[in-house]
């Protein structure tokens, strides 16, 4: 019969149409019984991005935001450890691996020197990331041997000016890092502690 295929296809759209309202009804019942909401709630967003999602699929940004997974990467930042007296101990040693590995070459580092002796110091004097050039590839974080540069989760960078970030904007505390990437931070802390312990054991053995 001519038109059968059309009707079959329309059947699919009808089922979709029906599901939209049915799912809303199911969730409004849920709201009464368990208090779970389909819209503007974490469980609702999780439902809409799960394998059982049906009906309305969209997320109303910016009122609703999809949670980003831990591995999500955006423009990098520099991690500093908070010293006991509130001082910022930057982990970066200006070793130069990140500007060397950066594909669009958006990282600039000026090394610092001790004013008294003129010898180079590990901390960077200036550190720039041209966030407009950055392609968010994550190589800098991946290959940094000091866990000093990490990829951020903050993707809302729209601005009226060019996003050239200096040390001021780039430095973020280690606690912030542990907040956005708990699993990674824990793993790296563990590895660093193990390394330090091994080093201490070695020097002790050496001394003895």
């Amino acid at each position: 019969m001519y038109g059968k295929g059309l009707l079959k296809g329309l059947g699919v759209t009808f089922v979709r149409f029906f599901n939209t309202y049915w799912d809303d009804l199911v969730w409004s019942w849920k709201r009464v019984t368990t208090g779970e909401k389909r819209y503007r709630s974490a469980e609702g967003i999780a439902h809409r991005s799960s394998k059982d999602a049906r009906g309305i699929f969209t997320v109303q940004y910016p009122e609703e935001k999809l949670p980003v997974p831990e591995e999500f990467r955006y423009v990098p930042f520099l991690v500093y450890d908070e010293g006991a007296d509130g001082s910022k101990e930057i982990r970066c040693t200006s070793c130069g691996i990140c500007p060397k590995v950066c594909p669009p070459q958006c990282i600039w580092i000026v090394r610092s020197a001790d004013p008294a002796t003129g010898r180079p110091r590990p901390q960077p004097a200036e550190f720039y990331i041209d966030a407009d050039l950055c392609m968010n590839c994550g190589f800098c974080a991946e290959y940094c041997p000091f866990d000093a540069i990490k990829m951020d989760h903050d993707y809302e960078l729209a601005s009226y000016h060019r996003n050239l970030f200096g040390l001021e904007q780039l430095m973020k505390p280690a606690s912030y890092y542990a907040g956005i990437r708990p699993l990674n931070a824990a793993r790296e802390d563990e590895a660093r502690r193990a390394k330090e312990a091994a080093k201490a054991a070695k020097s002790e053995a050496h001394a003895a």
Partner: protein
Amino acid sequence: MTAPASTLTVDLAARFPGIVSADSRPGHGGFLVAPEKLIEVATAIRDEFGYDLLSSVTGVDQIADGKMEVVYHAYKTTGGPALVFKTQAPRENPIVPSLVGVWMGAELQEREAWDLLGIKFENHPDLRRILMWEGFEGHPLRKDWHEPFFEEEAKPFKSRWPGGKHFFSEAKNPFHDNIQFPAGFDPEKYTFEDPEEALYTSLKKYQIADTDGIPTDHILVNMGPQHPSTHGVFRAAVMLDGETVVSLKPVMGYLHRNHEKIGERNTFLQNMPYTDRLDYFNSMSNNFGYALAVEKLMGIPVAERADYIRVIMAELSRIQNHLIWAGMMLNDLGAMYTPALYAFEERELILDIFEMTAGSRMMCNYFRFGGVARDMSEDALRRTRDLVFDRLPAKVDEIDRLLTDNEVLVSRLKGMGYLSAEDAIRASMTGPMLRASGVPYDIRRADPYSVYDRFDFDVVSRPEGDMYARYIVRIEEMRQSLRILEQALKQIPEGPIMSGKPQYQVKVQAGEAYGRIESPKGELGYYVVSNGKPNPYRYHVRAPSFINLTALEMMCVGEKIADFVAILGAIDIVLGELDR
């Protein structure tokens, strides 16, 4: 390793003594052919040895030897490794006979080699610039050509470290723009002939006879560059007789950024995120091909678990690509956005997995030489299993139910845009386009890479050669991808995800390698030449979207202008890859 011994199973040098010699440079393979006998040798390769599919044509600027080299990769559509042959011409005035008469698929690629390297192909039917604009000064892929913001031959730039003082590149250019003029050039006094004249003249195929005393003429229509059906900035200059297409030429390059020149400035690893930006729907597949090419050059194995993850990622890409293709194809046919948005739902769920694993939805940058960047978490694997076993099969069936029997769709697609198997092979078509013309050629089966030889799947092909066949092939391919995914998810072993240590500066010995994969759009190949330095000496992308356009005119002539939109849509082009 770098010179696969299997390419020498054909002894071309014995067949043509004195004309052909084996390429004996370290790490290189294949044969060197004298340019004056190239056509004869190429015809023999096609007819006597059976290498009917010319996959890739590209040039290499051998500046140290004062030579321009043209490299050809030919394959058999029945499967097997490549036959590589090369020809060299003096660098000052490189003239090489065109192979368009032997393999039509060389047409666009030879134009590209002329445009970017300045190699003249004698007797090419239409040797104009293709990616750069007419009137562009120089040939950018030549080693002595420098871009306006030129800093150094190779990254990393010293201004970043140990230099370190930030500057904006455009501040260094007197025009404050990405522009440079040839010496002595005054833009105020520049006069030019219409650069499009050659294009428009080439479209005039015949004169309409003036029979009834009513003067009639053909109409030239420029579809694009801004046209909703062209999936980006792509233009087709179409000559029409009434509504019927008489002749057609694709015009491209609006999104050109010279990916290959950037690639030669980059280190090997730095290229990986750039490949994401080729076919931005399938960054996983793009990574895959490039990783294969460089791994061949480096001669390193891939960790087994990583191989499985790679296959999982590539097949997920294929499914979402074909879903989106079905949606966008229907957009082109006028079914605005209902199928496209149904497809987008599934794509979003697949991209969620990419984001969890690779860190980004589209610009995945996930593959490394010898493995992948990070392991697939248990959560990501669970989500993949959920999708593959529980959701996607039903959703592919749903798209199938929604569209396949739809009478409007069938009448628009059936019998339209016909391409015979012979023409498809001649024009170097690959991927679903070739398989829809009745040639069951799938690199996953014909020349298996990674762990594809461990999976049980069918190569989908249809004999009809029309757009409906292309549609069916893609729908069926999604089902086959799901089959592969089910097996891969069951078999995936535990273990490391890198064969060596992760390193940002890989050691690549001198040589050449061609890595190719069956990307969702066709054969995606990377031709990489190394001279032992940290940067590739030559880096070429054989883009399926680009080469599949060779047959566009063939498919459109005689059809109505309205069907051009559908025919173009059925090829499945992505401009990021087409213009590179």
